[in-house]
């Protein structure tokens, strides 16, 4: 069975680079990969507990087995792979259960995108020049598990096991993908808004309406990810 995987990448226009890419001090890019922004203990964030290593002359990597892999390139491209199965984005006790009921958990789906936005925001501050724009690329691979499509559900505070016949938003294709480019200033000034936009794009792979995206609040005219709601999950 090919493992479902979700790849989220961010890049800036060519000609830029990460300053002091090979440094290892606390202000370095390697340190950011090793200790990315988090919102709570034991959250579904980008933390891997790994030590950054050069896997080629222009790429730093940290990984937590096959669950999470982060690769940062010297030109400022960040590529993050998340296992879209029971080990991270999925909701299942084990592989056998997930193969029958390949349900993605809305909690890690939202928190992963939030963590990515904040991590990349920290990384682009280390670029030689402030970029004008950021391109995000999102790809979901092997979205069919044992003949069953991955699906998303709403978030149920009292637990989905207590909900009768929850609606399933099934992925519309085996390998959906999306490209978007936004102003870099948007991520720098409003990372929670960019995180929401990313989640909305991901939810569109499942035709899930925006109003069913959890952990969202409205500020002015904007829907943003509610970081406090994420933090409250661990209380």
């Amino acid at each position: 069975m090919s493992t479902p995987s979700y790849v989220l990448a961010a890049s800036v226009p060519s000609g830029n680079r990460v300053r002091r890419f090979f440094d290892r001090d606390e202000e370095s890019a390697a340190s950011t990969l090793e200790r990315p922004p988090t919102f709570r203990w034991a959250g579904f964030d980008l933390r891997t507990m790994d030590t950054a290593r050069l896997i080629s002359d222009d790429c730093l990597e940290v990984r937590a087995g096959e669950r999470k892999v982060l690769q940062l390139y010297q030109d400022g491209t960040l590529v993050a792979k998340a296992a879209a199965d029971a080990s991270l984005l999925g909701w299942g006790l084990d592989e056998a259960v997930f193969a029958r009921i390949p349900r993605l958990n809305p909690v890690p789906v939202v928190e992963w995108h939030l963590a990515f936005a904040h991590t990349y925001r920290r990384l682009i501050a280390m670029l030689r020049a402030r970029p004008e724009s950021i391109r995000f690329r999102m790809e979901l691979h092997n979205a069919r598990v044992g003949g069953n499509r991955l699906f998303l559900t709403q978030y149920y505070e009292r637990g989905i096991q207590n909900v009768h016949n929850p609606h399933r938003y099934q992925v519309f294709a085996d390998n959906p993908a999306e490209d978007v480019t936004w102003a870099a200033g948007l991520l720098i000034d409003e990372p929670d808004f960019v995180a929401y936009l990313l989640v909305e794009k991901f939810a569109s792979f499942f035709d899930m309406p925006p109003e069913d995206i959890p952990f969202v609040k409205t500020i002015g005219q904007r829907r943003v990810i509610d970081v406090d709601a994420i933090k409250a999950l661990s209380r």
Partner: protein
Amino acid sequence: MPEQVLDAALEGLARGAFGPLIGLYEDHQFEAKGPVAYDFATPNSRYELAKDVTSFANSNGGVIVVGLDHSRNPNSALDVVRGLSLIPSAAFNPRQYLGVIREHTYPTIHGIDVRWIEHDGGGGAGLGVIRIPPQSADAKPFTILRVVEDGTHLKQFVLGYALRSGPDSVPMTAHQIQQNLKRGMDTVGQRLAAIEVLLEFLVERDAAPHPAAEPPPIANRIRRILET
């Protein structure tokens, strides 16, 4: 998990007070196992123990507790201890555990402590505890040796290497092992390699101007991460 939370729980564990273990999350220093985690009846279960122990030894040490009921919290990335599934002393033989570890790991992991601790409420039930202290960097890496026997007594030795990554004991692939052996796992070597790359970059930057190469398309990099 904050270190003081784990330390307090382990302090109580040593006295047979198991209550503080409930609610603990697995992480890079703590692994919860059910009552029949390692039955040693199969080579695979012996390999699993070696993998778990060497992964802690290759990191910063840790503790494995056998006899806990644990499951995934849907709001968290980690398994949490839900309760106790205590085991009798006959079900946890420390000498057997030490023997399996000695036979299936290389080099020797120093200071491993394996013991069965009775619940302070009595009743002849308790928990099995395997403590792996932090190991000297000079002694690393610790590897897994697996002896596979078939009906004709043919033996194969399989070398493996596992690293504790968050709550998981992650075995390296054969390619990763080979690459690390080739490069050497000496951090000085890695730093020298990084300096070399930086020097090359500086030389190229100061060389005659040339058109800047277009970076590889993002699709290539995504393909690369999917293949790792």
